[in-house]
């Protein structure tokens, strides 16, 4: 175990230097990208916000079911099959048919080529599960139908979230899917997440609807309240125009009234619709509705045919900017709820870094002094291994641009404390072996060989804990598992290559001395 070939010695040195180099690259600036890698600091160290959003898919499901009812009615009417008594009970579509059509309807709905109940060969499932009881049919979303629906609404939502976050212009946001109804948003360096939270919390469903002439609610109208909560208005349910037709929106100053407004421009289809509606509706009040609340309801004085317009409504410049941003980025398919938020201010992050480095330094010093006190020359060897272990660990984390968190720093310090274990096991074993063996080279060799399985066993157990933590843990805790796990690997390398190399050089040189260890 003590013999090292020249080639081996050189490769150990080269390997150590390369990885240690990356540890230093954190502190030195280089122009070249490859050589100036930096360790990523977690949100708890650099400050920033972590938001977990959950899509509330209920409105989407209800909407889709209502659309499905209309589709079913139309489809079966074309086939001249009478269906009646359509209703929506919870998330179930119910309808009846005549007795002699039961088989026919059943076949259409369960057909693999069905036009109204799509079949997904990959999942071996229809979009809807069909149940019938006599002439009463009930349709429910199948498991996969629901999964597909959720996935598509998540895909849309994540796109909108990305646009909104990008528009605000924070540095390097991280936006990821979580499961099939969650979005994780990480915003490093963001001190005040309130603006982003309010932007993400809005669905931004914009519609233009006429205010009804009647003052009572009736079929085809709905009662909506104004944004400021001052009053209500009865509004026609017919949507003249929705936010989908918007191509641009920006905050501007209305030169006549001297107030801040949001100017928008429409696409061709939207401009046509808008022009038609406003020419027939001169004199009527047009309500501008955002997420079920009326922002303002100006009277139409003349037809608006140019495809552009303005939204007024007591805006400050900030609120007009935000509304314009929301309209530009488009509406979310469903409301998003923030179910978890963690924000760390930048000064706390810096304090954590300082405390982490201080405790690393002190812990390191204490361990080093203790090892020299215990083992003298061999303590020095173990310490050299420990130093290079630390460099290797930080170097590898840097090379792979791993994320360093506060618990991650704790993991490094813990590695420092536990890393000496392997060398201690070896040294203690050597001490035992020298009792019976006079030749130090043989004794040292036996010490290394006989302690090997124990060291592997001991490190594998910690590695198992680190692995499980990596897969189960989240955020900062994951950072801990990474440093702990990588720390074990670098420990084994530093013990079996660096410390062993130094030991062998030392023992061969001093083999005639009494009591080496």
């Amino acid at each position: 175990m003590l013999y090292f070939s020249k080639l081996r010695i050189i490769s150990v040195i080269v390997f150590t230097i390369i990885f240690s180099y990356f540890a230093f690259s954190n502190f030195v600036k280089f122009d070249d990208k490859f050589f100036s890698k930096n360790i990523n600091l977690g949100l708890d160290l650099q400050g920033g916000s972590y938001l977990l959003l959950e899509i509330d898919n209920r409105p989407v499901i209800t909407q889709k079911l209502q659309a499905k009812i209309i589709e079913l009615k139309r489809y079966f009417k074309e086939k001249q099959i009478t269906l009646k008594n359509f209703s929506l009970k919870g998330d179930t579509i119910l309808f009846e048919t005549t007795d002699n059509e039961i088989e026919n309807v059943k076949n259409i709905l369960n057909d693999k080529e069905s036009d109204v109940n799509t079949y997904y060969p990959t999942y071996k499932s229809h979009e809807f599960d069909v149940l019938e009881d006599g002439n009463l049919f009930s349709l429910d979303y199948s498991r996969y139908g629901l999964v597909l629906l959720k996935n598509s609404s998540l895909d849309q939502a994540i796109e909108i979230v990305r646009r909104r976050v990008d528009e605000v212009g924070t540095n390097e946001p991280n936006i990821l899917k979580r499961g099939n109804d969650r979005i994780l948003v990480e915003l490093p360096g963001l001190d005040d997440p309130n603006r982003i939270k309010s932007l993400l919390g809005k669905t931004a469903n914009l519609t233009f609807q006429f205010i009804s002439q009647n003052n009572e609610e009736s079929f085809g109208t709905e009662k909506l309240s104004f944004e400021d909560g001052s009053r209500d208005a009865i509004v026609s349910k017919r949507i003249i125009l929705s936010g989908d037709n918007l191509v641009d929106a920006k905050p501007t100053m209305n030169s006549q009234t001297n107030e801040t407004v949001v100017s928008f421009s429409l696409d061709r289809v939207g401009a046509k619709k808008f022009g038609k509606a406003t020419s027939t509706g001169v004199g009527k009040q047009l309500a501008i509705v955002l997420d079920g609340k009326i922002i303002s309801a100006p009277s139409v004085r003349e037809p608006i045919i140019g495809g552009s317009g303005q939204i007024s409504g007591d805006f400050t410049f900030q609120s007009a900017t935000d509304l314009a941003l929301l309209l530009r980025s488009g509406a979310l398919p469903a409301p998003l709820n923030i179910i978890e938020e963690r924000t760390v201010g930048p000064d706390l992050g810096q304090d954590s870094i300082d405390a982490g480095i201080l405790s690393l330094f002190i812990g390191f010093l204490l361990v080093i002094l203790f090892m020299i006190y215990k083992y003298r020359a061999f303590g020095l060897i173990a310490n050299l291994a420990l130093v290079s272990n630390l460099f290797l660990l930080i170097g590898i984390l840097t090379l792979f641009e791993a994320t360093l968190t506060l618990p991650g720093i704790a993991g490094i310090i813990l590695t420092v404390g536990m890393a000496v274990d392997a060398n201690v096991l070896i040294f203690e074993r050597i001490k035992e072996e020298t009792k019976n063996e006079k030749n130090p080279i043989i004794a040292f060799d036996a010490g290394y060989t006989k302690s090997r399985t124990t060291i592997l066993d001991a490190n594998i157990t910690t590695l198992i804990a680190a692995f499980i933590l990596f897969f189960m843990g989240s955020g900062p805790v994951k950072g801990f598992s990474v440093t702990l796990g990588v720390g074990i690997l670098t420990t084994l390398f530093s013990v079996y290559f660096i410390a062993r190399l130094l030991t062998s050089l030392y023992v061969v040189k001093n083999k005639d001395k009494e009591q080496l260890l």
Partner: protein
Amino acid sequence: MREISFNKFYRKFNILSLVLIVISLIFLIFKGLNYGVDFKGGTLIELRTTDKTNNISLIRDSFNQMNLGDVSVKKFGNETDFIVKFEKQNSNDPEFIKNIQNKLSSSIGDVDFRRVENVGPKVSSELLKSGIIAISLSLAAMLLYIWIRFEWQFSLGAILAIFHDVIITLGIFSIFSLEINLSIVAAVLTIVGYSMNDTVVIFDRVRENLRKFSDIKIFELTNISINETLSRTIITSVTTLLALLSIYLFGGEILKGFSLAMILGVIFGTYSSIYIANPILVALNVSQRTIVKEEKD
């Protein structure tokens, strides 16, 4: 080195451990754990006041006026730093935190929110579930590993030692109402790894000695093995404790709970690999036949 008769005290320390475990379990069952916002849901705010005359009761009063449910206020390191926790979490209202800050500023002067954590009930129950799964999974993985590497008597000893460490550590957290959060789960997992590590080192030696000596009874043999590995056990615990102590004292308030749990775990882990793991080998009457039979298979 002079040999210490650890085996003389097997019985006494086993009784002590049993008492500690029973006390811990009583507290865990009847008092329960003090879950932080990670696992209970709610809001945590770490704040720094500019006015040095602010104290806990003043801050608590200001928060109590805001209808936020159960409020707890604690000092956090510095004179001017406090941790406030309350039940209500309303992260969907973007103004929620801002409003609190405004109200607070008007009643106790300028405050800086250094950290805000807001965890909904769904997320907290999921985090708790995955924490429990992670700990159970690691115990199962350890069991599997040691079962492959050793005979079942050894596995039983090692696993009981781990349970001993985890239960007593959590028991101490329950007795002193120390907060359980995500980093404590990480600490418990590391304790599991460390305790196992420590036990494995002694067990490796026991097994080696079992092969070497056929005429020494297990009662004596465990004592020999403990003594042979003793200096390693002490040195490693000392260096690990030095590192942990450094985190505890200088690593900042956030790591206090984590490092305390680890320190307790290392102390009990070291103790249990001597006084729980080995007596079990004695109780199961492990002999040379135990390992020779296994190896023939």
